[in-house]
Every structure is written in C-alpha cells, then in structure tokens.
C-alpha cells in the first residue's frame, strides 16, 4: 500500500484543540498573511491569485483569479463578497469542517479577498441546517471584531470591513451562486438566467464575488507564501490541495486534505482504510452526488484532479466521494438520489420541475415491480430533455447521475422490469 505524505493548507489546524478560538488560531499562524496583504495593491493580489491557478473549490473548479478579475474595481458602486457555505451536496461535508474547526482562517481569507476586490462587506451564506457550525463561526467573527480584525479600522490599516453571517432556509439550490444572491436579497432562491458575456455576479445590482468557503480559506496561504508555493502542490493544471472527503462503505469516512493528482484508490486506502468489511468496491460517486458515477474499473484509473476526472466522463466536483461496495443495490441507490433531486428542484423551469418528479415516480414503479422495459428508456429520454435546456446546471447534473447509473449498471435496472405487465 502506498503511504501518502500529508499536504495541508486549509486543514493544518483541524487537529488542534480549541483551534476555533482566536488565541489558539493566532498562535498557530492564522492572520499571518495580513502584514504582507496590506503591502500589496488590489491588482497585485488578483495577479497573484491568477498566477497561483487557484481553482474554485465549490464544485465547478473554475479558475478563481479570473473570477476576481471580473470585478469592476474603482466603480462608484460598492462591491460585495458572498462566501458560499450553503454546502448541501450529498456526500460533501468539507466547508463545515473549516467553519467549525478553523473559522479564523476563513475570516483571514475574507479579509484578503475583500481587500483585493475593494469590498467592505462580506456575507457568509451558511446552509440553514448548519446551525451549530454557524454559531461557532459567529463567535469567531465576534472575537475578530473585538480584536479589531474586523470592523471600522481593521488591523489599524484604515480599512473597513464587515462580515455578516446569513443562514439560509435549507434549499439546496441556494448553493447555486445566482440563487444564493437572490436568496440573500430576500427573494425566493431561483437561479438567474445566465448573462451573455462573462461578468461578475450582482447583489442588489452591485458587483459581487461569490466563492466557496474553501476557496477563500486557501487565499491566505497564497497571499503569504506566493503563487509558486501554492503551485508546488498538486499538478500543473490542478495546483494545490482540496479537502477531499469520503462517505459510504469505507472504514474511516471523513474529510482528509490531499493535494490534487493522487490516485483515487490510494486516497481511499490510505485515508479511508480501504473498503469496509474487506468487501470489493463496486462504484464511487466521485465529487458529491451530482457527478457521474464511476465503476470499480474506472476508479482504478481515476486520479484526483480535474483533468483526469473529465477524461473519465465524470468530474471532480466537490471531491466528496461516495463509496459503494459490491452489495450496493444500484436501483435503490439511484432512487435515493432522485428523491433528493425531486425534493430540491426549485421548480423554476419546466424540464427540471416536472422531470425530476417524473423520473422519481418511474423509479418507484420500478422498485414496486410495476414498471415495464420501455420505462427505462423513458427515464433516459426524460433525462435527455433535462440536459442542457434549463436555466441552471441542476437538471443537467441530475441527467448525468441518471445516465451514469443506468448505462453503467443497466442489467440491475432491467432485473426489476416486469415484462408480463400489460
């Protein structure tokens, strides 16, 4: 078995007792990027982030620096940062580790980011169910205000910054950046129709940057140590680290940071302690529920970076792996996921609103033994209609999930079909 060397950027303090408090965090190096930060200009920081090739860690993997560069600096309108902590993707539970075990790292990242995009207000949009974690985050913010790290004149550098925690009401779709902003504006969380040109997001018509918690938490390291230090981790096109996570049939499920590019099986064996009860691996959903499932054979080829996963027809997503052993019933597993999507579709556009419910109904029929062979084709056809015809990527993701399960494990689905039905 390959022994992996620990590479930690955001999780370096997770094991320390009381790491969520300011004194402990500070003792272990949090806020040490601030001195360098204020010697740099906005443009310089954005250039460093671009240079580091830091990629968004919320699932999309788009280069963060490019997104920052879309912010119109020096405009008359105020600009905002919205930190996306609406972590609701099944199999994904990394952001809550950051806000509960190292919230000051996130605050430090927010300070760096806001200074770079000239924003004086940051919102942290926390998933509604994360009450407990949100409380820890809030007390860290309170500590930071008291220490003068947040507020009117942060670190006595003449810069004003307010950080506001906003708890969502528990909708998965509010993790979609434009739906998040709609929700933050007090409206129903519906994704917005995408702009025709590349542009920043808008919060009450003000330029806004939306980034995932982990992305922001990676910023202090880069500001402090420079882009090259960050690029020492990972691969050339997927530099750095990610808080990969495992759930399902592994011996030690949990969140373990690792650099990009290592083999998926090595990760599972090293950190997860292998498959539970010595069973054989059947499949892995690689990056949160909404990525295409990989068979055991494909997992053998999989490396934890964006490019390899794309080449396998799936994606790295959030890096939250759902591991399934040989005894897993794929039909029931897909039904479980489809119930989730049926429940969480926001209902704005037709293909998703009606499609997610319909496929769930047909899957129920399949499990109840009242479905016919053509129903499997019907599911695939509905899934095709959901792909690429909607406002946001929710429906295309569902489509990928369905497609992956049914095409890769078709015989299991067919075994539920009742051809004698008329």
């Amino acid at each position, binding site marked *: 078995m390959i022994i992996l060397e620990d590479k930690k950027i955001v999780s370096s303090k997770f094991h320390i007792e009381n790491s969520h408090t300011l004194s402990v965090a500070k003792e272990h190096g949090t806020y040490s990027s601030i001195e360098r930060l204020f010697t740099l200009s906005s443009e310089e920081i954005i250039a460093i982030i671009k240079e580091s090739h830091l990629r968004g860690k919320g699932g999309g993997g788009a280069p963060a620096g490019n997104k920052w560069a879309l912010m119109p600096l020096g405009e008359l309108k105020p600009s905002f940062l919205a930190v996306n902590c609406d972590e609701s993707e099944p199999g994904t539970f990394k952001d809550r580790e950051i806000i509960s075990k190292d919230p000051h790292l996130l605050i430090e990242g927010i300070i760096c980011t806001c200074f770079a995009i000239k924003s004086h207000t940051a919102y942290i949009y926390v998933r509604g169910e994360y009450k407990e974690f949100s409380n820890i985050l809030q007390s860290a913010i309170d500590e930071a205000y008291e220490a003068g790290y947040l507020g009117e004149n942060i670190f006595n550098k003449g810069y004003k910054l307010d950080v506001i925690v906003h708890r969502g009401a528990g909708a998965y779709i509010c993790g979609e950046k434009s739906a998040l902003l709609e929700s933050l504006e007090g409206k129903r969380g519906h994704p917005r129709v995408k702009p025709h040109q590349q542009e920043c997001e808008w919060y009450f018509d003000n330029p806004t940057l939306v980034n995932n918690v982990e992305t922001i938490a990676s910023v202090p390291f880069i500001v402090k140590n420079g882009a090259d230090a960050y690029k020492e981790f990972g691969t050339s096109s997927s530099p750095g680290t990610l808080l990969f996570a495992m759930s399902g049939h592994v011996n030690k499920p949990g969140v373990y940071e690792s650099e990009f590019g290592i083999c998926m099986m090595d990760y599972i064996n090293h950190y997860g302690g292998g498959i539970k009860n010595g069973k054989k691996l059947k499949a892995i959903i690689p990056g949160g529920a909404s990525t295409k499932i990989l068979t055991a054979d494909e997992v053998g080829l999989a490396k934890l970076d964006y490019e390899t996963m794309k080449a396998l027809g799936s994606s790295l997503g959030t890096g939250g792996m759902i591991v399934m052993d040989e005894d897993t019933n794929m039909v029931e597993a897909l039904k479980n996921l489809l119930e989730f999507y049926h429940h969480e579709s*926001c209902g704005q556009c037709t293909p998703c609103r009606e499609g*997610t419910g319909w496929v769930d109904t047909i899957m129920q029929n399949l499990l109840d033994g009242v479905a016919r062979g053509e129903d499997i084709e019907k599911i695939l056809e509905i899934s095709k*209609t959901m792909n690429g015809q909607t406002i946001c990527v929710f429906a295309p993701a569902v489509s990928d999930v369905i497609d992956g399960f049914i095409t890769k494990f078709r015989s299991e689905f067919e075994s539920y079909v009742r051809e004698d039905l008329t």
Partner: protein
Amino acid sequence: MSLVTVNIDDKSYEAKENSLLIDLLILHDIKVPYFCYHESLGADGNCRMCMVEIEGKKRPQIACDTFVSDGMSIQTASEKISSVRKRILELELINHPVDCPICDQAGECKLQDYYMDFGLYDSNIDMKEKVHNKKHIALGSSVILDRERCVLCTRCVRFTSNITKSGELGVINRGDKACISTVPGMKLDNPYAMNVVDLCPVGALTSKEFRFAQRVWFLKSTPSICHGCSTGCNIFIDHNQEKYKEDKIYRIRPRKNREVNGDFICDYGRLSYKNLQENRQQELLNKSNVISYEDALLELNSKISGSKNIVILVDANLYNEDIAAISNFSQKIGAKLVCPTECYFDDSFGDDWLKSDYKCANLQAIKNYKIDSLFSSDQQIDLLINFNHPSFSKFSSKQSVEFSTHKGSSAELVLAIPAYSEYSGTTINDANIEQYSQKAITTDVATISEYLSDLSKVAL
C-alpha cells in the same frame, strides 16, 4: 440603433440590433411556442418552450433570451427543435389534469394550441401518477386559481410585482409541488387584479364573473373603447346571442394599444359591461305610458315649439357624432347647451396609471365644442331636454324630456337610446386621441342622430 439582417428558416428579416429574437418571431408570425414571455412583462426564461436553433451554438437556445445580431442564422422548425419542444411540452402536461371539457380557458388555451401545433404525442403517464393540487382557490374577490392547470410561467406574479407593484402573488413550495399563492395576509384585490386572468396562458386563473358563463368559441369579439373614464382604454366586447335569447355581453377584455393602455385595463372598466345590460330603458314613455316612435317625435316637437327658455343637457359619454348632432340641434331651436362636468369628477378613482379622475369617455369633445361645463340660471326653465346626463334630477323645469339609456327617469317624455356598445362612434380621450368604437350589440332602439334627423322631418 442600427438595423441588422437575420436569417430565419432560410428567409431574411430586418431587425434592430440587440432586439429580442422572440419579438421578431412574433412580429412576423413565425410559429414559436411560449408561456412565460410577455411583451409587457419581459422575458423570464422559465418555460423553456421558445427554443430555436442558432447556427454556431451547440444547444438549442431560448428565443426570449437571444438578442439578434447581424448575420445570425436561426432555425425554428428543424427536426431537433421540434423534438425538443415536443418533449418540453410533454413535461408541461404530465401533471396537468387535462380537464379541458370543464375548463373556461378551453378554446383560447396555449397548452391546447401548442399540443395541436407541436405535440400530438400519445400520453406516457398514468392519470393516477399525476401530482394533484387544489382546484379552486379564491385569490381575491374576482380571480380563482386552479393549481393543477398552472404551468408556473409566473406571469401573474410578475404582473403584481413589476406592473402594479402591489406584490400580492408569489410562488410557494418547490419542484413539481411549486404553486402560485397569495402572500400571507394579502388578497389579490388591487384595481387591476383581473388582468392576471388575461395574462394566464392556461386555465389556471379564471375570472369569477366569467367562469362557466360561456364557451369562448361562441363569443364574438367587437373592438370598442371603454367608457369607464376619460383614458379611453381599448377593449374587446365579447358577446354572444344564444338561440332565442338576446345578444349579451359576457366579458370585456383589454385590446392592445401601446399609445393608450398597453395590454391592460382596470377591473372597474372590465366589469362595466354589467351596467350596460342591467335596468335598461327599452320603451318610449309619455307620462309613464308607452307610446310609438312617431307619437314620441310629435310630442317632443310640440314641447319644443311651446317653450321659450330651453336648456339641453348633454352627457360627456356620448360619441362625437351625437354631440355634433345635439350641438346643431340646440342652435336650431335656440336652446342653451350645457354639460356640467363636476359630477364626473372623482379623484378617489383616478391613479397614476390607467384610471383618470374624470369618469366619462368623451370630455374632450365637450371642451372642443365649447359646451359650458357650469350652469346656473335665475330664469325658470321652460323645457329641459336631457341627453343622458347623470345630473338631470338636480334641475327643475316646467317640462322635461329625457333621452335615456337606463330606467328611472322622472321626465314626462322618456326616449330610450342605445348604450355605447349598441352603436358605433368616436370618442376623444384625455390625451386627445380620437378612437372608434364598433357596434357590438344589436338593438331596435333609435340612436340620438336618428331621433334628431327624424324630428326635423316632423318639424317640417
């Protein structure tokens, strides 16, 4: 803005650069299905029906979010697009109750139209698998919501949030359980509420007044002008004469006129048709006795010739043609012509949108003919001839004649006249736009012009 050339289905069209593709398609009557787009409400992009194929784009695009550019090449009826539309329409319909036989929208329903144009597939879903929902929710005093029929286009929601800015409606719940609802504590009772019934492309929102009253394919739509106030909103009068019955108005709908009322009318105007057919004066009466047309003219003539001080009251709702005829007539008989306008004024009625403070349709004509709007006289009036002015009862005179649309006149001689829906004519609104109303309902009653021209023959 510069003009560009766009190629649609292998034909060239000119359009303003960066204008919306869907507007161009609608303008040129190129078939494109859509639920959520509406010219007055803008694009929302939720129904996904208006898919077109654009050269150079991998996936079909929605026409309501496509801005035209020079040389753009578009296919609206390719096999790919037809199949996409059919499949999305199928999704729109899977949870629809298909209760067309009892639905008031049947006949003017976009789901029906599009199914015939783009669908025509066999149903793939069992009735018992459909998501069920409430079918009768009173959103306010005049609009009923059927949630099963709704396609969630949110036109009604956007109307209340963007147009009336009253915000009574919203979407609640998610996925296939999402539905329209009033906001807690609110009712859809704003003065323009019933426009949502016209906006609704399906049978989800129906008018309490019109529900189950008539099948729309029996209705004849006559273009007319609302007489509720001096804005002069363009309307359709929808009416039908059922066998052995009288021609009857079943509803008034807005008729698009960007210069005047856009796509909308107020509920007051919309419901004003009831007054047009209730308590109507049909007979000619002399001291409460029914008399013939000829006798009525003779009686009128003798009253005029026997009177010295004659005052004529004219209603500011009459057509220009009536007012012209009355004006001539008053000069001929040497009468004083007046139209007190105070009674039309109601500043609690007017608003800054479609409703004006003057509740009469042709005030401008009264001004144009320089008819006095104030009247006081110390002299005893010998004969008062009223042409349907509402203030008739405030005047005293030795003798009185009233040309009246409605019952209840106290005049000695009462002459029935048609309401505006029963003959044609023009009115001038408060923006000085002259507009034509067509005759919708047939009636035997003579018009004012007919009375006056026949009277001149009697007088000879």
